């Protein structure tokens, strides 16, 4: 299961939870209460404190999981380190990718580095699976070395596409099967 599918699943559960809450809340709002509580007149009430605790728990759980569970955090976080086995220099100019080789050959589970430079405007460097889902991407800021390390965990052919709008010809900035990951 790709991470994108996990995101969809979590969002679906969240959506249903929020929807259920609002249906129940709205249906009870127009009816007189069986009992009511008072609060909030003197600073933070008990209910608000409890809600704040819920928010803190969500914050901690979400951030801890995304800092530790995602595979690429092992080599992308500021304090992580991964030594690339190969480095590929790619240049972008006038809506065109200039690849060092086509296709770029990579071994599965081998750390590789892509250094992408643009000579004119901002582009994006995105790698996609055959089914269209994104593997990773980065922005390509002109006149800078934009570098990313990646470890492909699945053999296959991958498409490169510019992920940032760069002008009217931008939709043509795609090279199918530009990367081949070997077992």
């Amino acid at each position, binding site marked *: 299961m790709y*991470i*994108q*599918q996990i*995101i*969809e699943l979590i*969002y679906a559960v*969240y*959506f249903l939870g929020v*929807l259920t809450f*609002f249906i129940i*809340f*709205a249906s009870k*709002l*127009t*009816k007189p*209460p069986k009992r*009511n*509580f008072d*609060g*909030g007149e*003197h*600073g*933070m*009430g008990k209910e*608000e404190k409890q*809600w*704040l605790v819920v*928010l803190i728990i*969500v*914050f901690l759980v*979400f*951030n801890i999981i*995304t800092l530790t569970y*995602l595979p690429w*955090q092992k080599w992308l*976080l500021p304090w992580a380190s991964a030594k690339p086995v190969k480095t590929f220099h790619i240049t972008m100019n006038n809506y065109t990718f200039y690849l060092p080789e086509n296709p770029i050959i990579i071994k599965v589970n081998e750390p590789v580095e892509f250094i992408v430079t643009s000579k*004119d*405007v*901002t582009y*994006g460097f*995105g790698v996609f*699976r055959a*089914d*269209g*889902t*994104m593997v990773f991407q*980065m*922005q390509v*800021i*002109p006149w800078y070395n934009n570098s*990313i390390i990646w470890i492909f965990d699945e053999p296959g052919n991958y498409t490169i596409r510019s*992920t*940032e*709008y*760069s*002008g*009217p*010809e*931008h*939709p043509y900035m795609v090279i199918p099967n530009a990367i081949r990951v070997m077992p």
Partner: protein
Amino acid sequence: MSQSSIPLEKITLRYEIIALLFLAVAGIEGFMMRIELDNIPLISYDHYFAVMTAHPIVGIYGWAYLAVMGAFYYLVPKLLNKELYSKKIAMIGLWMQTAGVIIAWSAGFVFHYGALYTLYWPLPVAWDRFSPVGALTYAVGVALIEISVLLFIFNIFATIFSHKKGSDKVVRNFLIAAFGIDALLGVLSRIRHSRRLSHMDGGVKDPPPPVFIVSVMRGSIDAVINSIVLIVAGLIILVYSISAIAGTYLNPQLIDPLIYKNWYWWGLDMIADGDVLIWTAGTLYLLAPLLANRALYGERVVRYVILADLIVSMGVWSHHLLSDRPQPAMLRLVSGQFITWGEFFTMGLSFFTALITLWLGRPIKSSMSLKFMLGAIFGFALGGFAGLVQANYGLNVIIHNTQWIAGIHIHMMLLAGLSSLIFAVIYTLLPMLTGKGLISERLSNLHFWLWMIGSVGMSIAVGLAGTAGMLRRDLYFGTSMYLPYMYIGTVFAIIMALGYLMFVINVIKTYGLKTLVGLFIPLKQ
């Protein structure tokens, strides 16, 4: 009739009507793009990106800003029991902003200028892709809009600061409240004297201004910063385009694209993560007690929340640069991810305050204002969470620039969230402004349900295309991979448009087309 003798109600109605017309224009643009994304060639692809450039300008500054300005022009003086500082400035601002939006829109539609609202340097001055005349037109339009925003802020502040005899502390107290100095003094007082939050006076002995007014003022600070940043960006484009028209091509490398991007997003985010959220919170603080007929729950806490929102909005810009690898990694992590979660807390507490205020006021009479207010919180809750998924150091790697952000975050926030809240305010204001509410309850209910189902459905359909890998700001010629999402998105967009249509029909049925036109042009009886 001279400008100063125009009733305030009429000024607000003019703002709201023009805002609603711009919403229709933004909707038509949206449909043009939806049809193109359905792989039905309607316009050329350079025109598609020009429409995409104009769309947020019309939607944000034509619809949302004008609607909010109109409402605030009425509410701020009423709540303070004062006269508006200058009705003339209000009317000049309305026409200036309308002209600015039309000019910026024409840059796209007439000159096919398509550098997008992001204006990533040096794309706005890439003369091999766009004409300098288009850039010049766009810059002039944006400049007019931003000057109008500054006039609005000046007018609101001048209204708040104007004081009567015997109340010479008004200016001081409002300034203290606007910048959150009262809240800061309160925190210091608590630290020094271990006093309970409930007993803090924050050093301000006079009654504090209503929280809605405090929100308007603090949100205005963000709006001013945003305007200045956009005016400077517009001036840079102006200089480059005039030079190009004169035959001298300035070197784009004079400006560093990464520093520019940081500075631009810092300013631009003052809208998205600043005044939109602060003004939204303020509006909820106003509507909830009004609907519940009771005091706002936890008003003292709310003042700290508004202050926190102001501080958070200054530090979140890096979530737009999470995929910019030359940006320092720690800055991306801290500003882009952790500080952005500050909004989760401030908005989480704001929604809690609004909802519990309603809960404690039960039974509450069902009304369109109530329905749209709940719908707005529902929309913000859905769109806000999607934004946090995107503003994540790890997840951004696979989500950035996909349709997830355009659909499930931006459009959910702006259509289901912000626009619903504006409708809640309009439904509240109309009886106050005109003496009668909309006549057809059936049409009002249809408006609500079609709008909510359409906006939420469209946002989710488009957003899920993003997790499937579809990019925003792109076209997929000859590819059917993402079409099912796009088709479903179009169906929901039609439902949403029908909701808007129900509202327009109801307004015309209630007041008559002649009356509405008569707000602008004096008609013979």
